[in-house]
């Protein structure tokens, strides 16, 4: 195949993935590294890429310290209780103390933030969320990144990280291909900031056929944040902490503004409040420290999101579905009705399409809610991702190895979905993490830590052969059959994705098993995952677009395997409502008040698992 090899040499900082994390990294890197060569490699078009491509109607992480609203430690407490104790508090505190400056910048750049006319502060929809007109959120931050980078390579699917051959465990760049031209792109770089996306579509979605694209998280988020890092041998953490979302049925429309700002609430099919009925039983399972409704009522400490999911799931399984969002009261106010619709149009247009198609007017009819299939991500309300170093002025020794947000691979940094243990970052926090990683990456280079990097042609050629193998495989075996897609020698990417989703759904707690799994199921799942990996060597791509899907699938596979390994290792049900280990249903703080850390040997594919201490920065 006559694809050109295009080498970009002498890069100081390569930003892989330019969603909110990557744009933040590119922007900040220019300030601390004025003389440095900063390059962005983005799978789509930076103007509309990542999870914020279609916009956001709220910035979900803003302290409001200048308005006397919250301090960083308040956010740490909140994220800690929401994730049942398991967060990297050093990283959270660090993100939270910088996130306000990020949001203030956004406003200066032209992002329309709503203000509370009475207080002058930003309009809150909840304690941590402020409301924006964010349809053009991504184009605005993309402009900042484009102004700062030396070069932006759009439509580059980064498949692998390059490793330094003069020093073990040091990164040296990345490789990928252009999804339009097919050309092979090599980026030789002193430092790499992975800011790619988390994983949608690793679990079977509730929708089928054409509707498979109607998922909660972007369908183009292919777990590359994890696939790239795992493939390079970086240590990962909290990969079992996948998230299940309670959302409007079939549309996956956001519910945060509805609950918090519009003051809607939920009921079961009998018109009853149902959540509190589940608390006594659930309290026996998780302990009073994580579920104390009286204390929550008194202190406004939130009940963890996963536990509210638990109530919804169990109420439906008890035969009292559907769960309705009571919108008919709030929507009698024309202003609130307009906000309700704008909430979708600014970030989940599909929900508006669905209600228009099904004649569901929330003013006259209470819409249904349901729980989504699981997702793996590190920037929303869960903390999957790489085991990263924290900042020097906060982190204990186990969390600190020199450079903020650097993974366990030297010169390799993570932001957004890629940084583990830092949930509740959302868009503003991801951008902030990118900024933090960029400053640290500049320091890493200035300290001379990236000197003498060597990448041989052998490594570059080996990756090239690997990348195009699916197209080669297709060419070799295509003519063994007459027509169609059934071939004894290969599967195509869609067939592979269907298999992965079925496997994860059935063995690792998807929707069809009500998020339930156990040790036996997970072991069977892992065995099937290994066989699937063998078949992935035989995946066939008919064209460059399918080659893109093939590599997305390979990243999803690496992500999924890590999720299974972590879920098997953590012998407890830490987050009922996100998943259940049927064989170990109780939260077991005595043995498992720890963070889980894994490493996949890039050569053998073998996993090693370990526990890491869960330090708390602040008193309750």
């Amino acid at each position, binding site marked *: 195949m006559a694809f050109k090899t295009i080498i970009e040499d002498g890069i100081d900082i390569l930003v892989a993935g330019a969603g909110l994390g990557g744009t933040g990294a590119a922007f900040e890197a220019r300030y601390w590294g004025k003389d440095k060569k900063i390059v962005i490699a983005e799978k789509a078009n930076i103007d509309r890429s990542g999870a914020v491509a279609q916009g956001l109607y709220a910035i979900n992480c803003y302290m409001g310290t200048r308005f006397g609203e919250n301090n960083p430690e308040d956010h740490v407490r909140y994220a800690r209780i929401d994730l049942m104790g398991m967060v990297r508090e050093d990283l959270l505190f660090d993100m939270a103390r910088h996130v306000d400056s990020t949001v203030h910048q956004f406003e200066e750049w032209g992002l329309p933030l709503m203000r509370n006319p009475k207080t002058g502060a930003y309009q809150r929809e909840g304690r941590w969320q402020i409301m924006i007109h964010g349809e053009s959120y991504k184009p605005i931050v993309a402009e900042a990144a484009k102004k700062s980078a030396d070069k932006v390579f759009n439509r580059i699917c980064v498949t692998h990280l390059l490793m330094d051959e003069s020093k073990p465990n040091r990164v040296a760049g990345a490789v990928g291909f252009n999804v339009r031209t097919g050309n092979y792109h090599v980026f030789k770089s002193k430092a790499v900031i992975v800011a790619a996306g988390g994983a949608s579509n690793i679990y079977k979605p509730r929708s089928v056929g054409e509707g498979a694209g109607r998922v909660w998280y*972007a369908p183009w988020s292919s777990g590359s944040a994890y696939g790239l890092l795992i493939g390079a041998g970086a240590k990962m953490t909290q990969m079992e902490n996948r998230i299940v979302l309670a959302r409007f049925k079939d549309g996956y429309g956001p519910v945060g503004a509805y609950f918090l700002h519009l003051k809607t609430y939920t009921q079961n099919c009998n018109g009853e409040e149902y959540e509190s009925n589940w608390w006594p039983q659930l309290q026996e399972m998780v302990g009073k420290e994580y579920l104390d409704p009286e204390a929550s009522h008194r202190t406004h400490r939130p009940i963890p999101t996963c536990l509210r999911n638990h109530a919804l799931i169990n109420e439906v399984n008890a035969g009292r579905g559907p769960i309705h969002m009571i919108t008919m009261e709030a929507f009698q106010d024309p202003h609130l009705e307009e906000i309700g619709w704008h909430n979708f149009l600014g970030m989940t247009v599909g929900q508006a399409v669905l209600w*228009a198609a099904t004649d569901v007017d929330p003013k006259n009819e209470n819409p249904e809610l349901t729980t989504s299939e699981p997702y793996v991500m590190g920037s929303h309300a869960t903390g999957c991702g790489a085991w990263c170093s924290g900042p020097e002025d906060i982190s204990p020794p186990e969390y600190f190895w020199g450079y903020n947000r650097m993974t366990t691979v030297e010169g390799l940094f993570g932001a957004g979905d890629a940084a583990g243990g830092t949930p509740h970052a959302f868009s503003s926090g991801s951008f902030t993490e990118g900024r933090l990683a960029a400053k640290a990456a500049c320091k890493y280079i200035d300290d001379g830590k990236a000197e003498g990097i060597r990448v041989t042609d052998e490594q570059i050629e080996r990756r090239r052969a690997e990348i195009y193998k699916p197209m080669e495989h297709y060419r070799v075996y295509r003519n063994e059959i007459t027509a169609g897609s059934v071939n004894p020698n290969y599967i195509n990417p869609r067939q592979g994705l269907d298999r992965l989703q079925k496997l994860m759904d059935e063995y690792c707690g998807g929707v069809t098993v009500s998020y339930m799994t156990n040790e036996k199921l997970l072991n069977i799942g892992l065995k099937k995952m290994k066989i699937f990996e063998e078949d992935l060597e035989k995946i066939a791509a008919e064209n460059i677009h399918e080659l893109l899907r093939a590599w997305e699938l390979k990243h999803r596979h690496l992500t999924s395997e890590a999720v299974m390994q972590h879920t098997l290792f953590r012998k407890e049900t830490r987050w009922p409502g996100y998943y259940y280990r049927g064989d170990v249903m109780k939260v077991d703080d005595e043995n498992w008040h720890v963070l889980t850390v894994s490493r996949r040997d890039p050569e053998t594919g073998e996993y090693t698992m370990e526990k890491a201490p869960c330090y708390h920065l602040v008193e309750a």
Partner: protein
Amino acid sequence: MPTFVYMTRCDGCGQCVDICPSDIMHMDSVVRRAYNIEPNMCWECYSCVKACPHNAIDVRGYADFAPLGHSVRVQRDEEKGVIAWRIIFRNGEKDMTLLAPITTKPWGQAIPQLADEAEPSQEMRDSQHLYNEPKYIRLDDGGLHTLESNGLKLKEGVYY
């Protein structure tokens, strides 16, 4: 589909192909017009709909749950900095127009060129500050939060 392209309106300019985050808007090699090659990887994000200069792209709800006959149309005007939506229900009983701002500043002018900023001092480099901090945090005392300043200390174990 969910997105689809009206044959008579598309002139094959390729702006939807350029912007689609999911790489599914492609050109048909025969009619030289755009189409959605992979509807089940479309998110209905409307990026292509907004980018199309001829209003040639529309969305119909996913076939596995959405009946036919509805409409959610959009006009995004960068010069005026506004976006306008029109939602028409399938039964025709609801027809809404909604307007929202997309930016408060002209494009391309409000974001600083960081390469033109003064070189950060060594003290800044050694600190925990990011660009333009602590000014952009806008605390009254101008300082960045640290564990000490906030009266915090590390503690290990379970407590709530």
